[in-house]
């Protein structure tokens, strides 16, 4: 692939522009489905775009004593991290930017927005944001290890750290959702927590902390940060679709035409997103200590168990 088409891949399709549109689309579906569950009408299709554009034009306010440069840079770093993670994912077939070991890199990049929430929380110099930032990182310590373990289980089974290879392996050996349902469940819970969605929206906690670390983000900072988290929803769902649901492969055709492949991946990602959305509508918010006890008593043992089972089966030469 020459430089020009790589640039096109990164900036237009399926990179920046495409992912940004998808992020807004997923935000629309998220809001619409939750609204319908709640007996409301919900927003029109272009509402997320309108919100984004409107926020771009709004005044940016830095609280007294806050570090304005950090607050401006943080959302951009988060956005860049999420978009970079998405570029590594084999959505059209193998990604031109993918390499052996792209899975840990993508996971690392998807962790960055949460760390950035901590930075934003403390840079904003407010009790609400600091507490929210502290909570965001407390949560990170609870869900991140099980989440990583759950996503590494497919890698161990496939014997590769490359997302493309894991997708390939599934075409030959069957979808991993069938052999590793526990890992999928842990991954979904981890994803929900990572994206700060109910019942794990503990860092944002509107009724306690206004908006947690988000409280002092205004104007384009808020718009970009929101977009990063929407894009993270897309990237997370695509990741699950790739690692557990076989990515863009069709039964009997591991390498369909790229347009078909991307449609299949997105359809699967969309189904994953629907699960996350319905869960968001069906629960209230847990407390930190409750999530912590759930994380260590249920989530972590489940992930460890799954990895153990995978190690035994792989070591035992089965399948």
């Amino acid at each position, binding site marked *: 692939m020459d430089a020009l088409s790589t640039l096109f891949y990164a900036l237009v399709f399926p990179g920046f522009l495409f992912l940004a549109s998808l992020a807004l689309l997923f935000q629309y579906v998220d809001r619409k489905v939750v609204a319908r569950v709640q007996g409301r009408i919900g927003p029109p299709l272009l509402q997320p775009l309108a919100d984004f554009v409107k926020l771009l034009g709004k005044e940016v306010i830095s609280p007294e004593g806050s570090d304005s440069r950090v607050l401006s840079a943080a959302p951009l770093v988060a956005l860049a991290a999420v978009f970079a993670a998405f570029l590594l994912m084999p959505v059209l077939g193998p990604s031109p930017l993918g390499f052996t070991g792209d899975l840990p890199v993508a996971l690392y990049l998807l962790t960055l927005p949460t760390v950035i929430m901590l930075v934003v929380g403390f840079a904003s110099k407010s009790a609400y944001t600091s507490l929210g930032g502290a909570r965001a990182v407390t949560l990170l310590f609870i869900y991140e290890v099980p989440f990583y373990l759950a996503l590494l289980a497919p890698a161990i089974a496939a014997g590769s750290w490359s997302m493309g290879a894991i997708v390939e392996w599934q075409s030959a050996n069957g979808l991993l959702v069938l052999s590793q349902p526990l890992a999928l469940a842990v991954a979904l819970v981890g994803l929900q927590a990572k994206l700060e969605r109910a019942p794990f929206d503990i860092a944002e906690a509107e009724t306690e902390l206004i908006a947690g670390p988000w409280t002092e983000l205004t104007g384009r900072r808020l718009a970009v940060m929101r977009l990063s988290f929407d894009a993270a929803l897309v990237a997370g769902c695509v990741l699950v679709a790739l690692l557990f649901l076989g990515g863009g492969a069709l039964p009997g055709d591991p390498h369909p035409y790229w347009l078909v492949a991307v449609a299949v991946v997105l359809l699967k990602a969309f189904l994953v997103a629907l699960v996350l959305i319905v869960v968001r509508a069906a629960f*209230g*918010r*847990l407390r930190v200590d409750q999530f912590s006890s759930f994380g260590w008593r249920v989530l972590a043992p489940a992930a460890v168990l799954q990895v153990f089972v995978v190690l035994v089966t792989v070591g035992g030469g089965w399948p």
Partner: protein
Amino acid sequence: MAEIMIPIGPQHPALKEPVNFKVFAEGEIITRLELDLSYNHRGIEKAAESRDFTRVVPLLERICGICSHSHTTNFVKGVEEAMGVTPPPRAQYIRTLIAELERLHSHMLWLGVGGHEIGFNTLLMWTWRDREDIQDTLEEMTGNRVNYGTNKVGGVRRDLTQDQIDRAHKRFDTLEERFQGYAEMATQNPTIRERFQGVGKLTREQALALGTVGPTARASGVDSDIRRDDPYCAYPDVKFQVVTEESGDVFGRTLVRVREMMESLKICRQLLADLPEGPIAAKAPRTAPKADVISRYEAPRGELVHTILTDGSDHVARLDIRTPTLANWTSVAASLPGAHLADIPVVVAAIDPCLSCTSRVTVVDIHGRKPASYSWDELRAWGIDRHAGRRRRS
């Protein structure tokens, strides 16, 4: 982690009305709490002294946006007692019916707010949607959704038609089904259980010592309900149960309210079925003889007390209103230390506070133990000084 102070209010998304808590916390655990009430003193008691009995009723209706009927019923009941007037039975039934519909929509509102406080907005949207059915019924019967304008001294102002009664019955059937759903949801949804059970615990002894009232007291096993203990209006004629729970936590308060909704519906049906014929108001005299009446009423949030002093003229000499929120406030401060920061909105909301209705001003010299009074100009100067920061809030 060092102790930090987190200000909650007077403006805060968890609060619908202004109040200020200074919460001192170590990490996520609350160590102590300072309550600062009365941001919305409206001088209603004073205003009530300057209006005659007819014109004071609409004023009292506007004390609270939710239990508007409670205040007027309690007041006209007290004034009727002072005058020696007995309203006809049909008027009593209509008053009671509106009162129970008010309790229904108030408890529905609370359930939604309770859900919202733990981020369970689906429950909020559902309960508030169904609450509209009750509001529609109230609007059909009285012409208004909030301030019904039903009461007057001596009776009620509007009669019910058969058409309204039929429609209300139809709505009650749907509501009963929905209430069952809420009862199930409140007891079975895992996040509600996690966030409400064992939170904001108040023992029976504490509840009694702090003088809590209404669902807050009943959830701690205090078996008190003015509707049964000191019956008024049509309550002697209807059968209902006083709902109590033993757990004393927010979950108990939720269960009490949900089951009270069922009881209220039962009362409404009985009232409509047994509605007596006859006039809807008795002729009341213009003035009331000198009297000192304490009027009690079971508002949705608990016991509401109006102390009415009359002096033979056509207006009250003094009216003192003790709202249930004032009786319940101290229980919040008592049950929060040791709890998690995240529990504040839930525990505060669990008493269903109605803040603006509660604000009163008394000036007391704590050393001389003497009450004092301010003139309007002095009060104004005091207020300007305070907001300019020249005077410490005392």
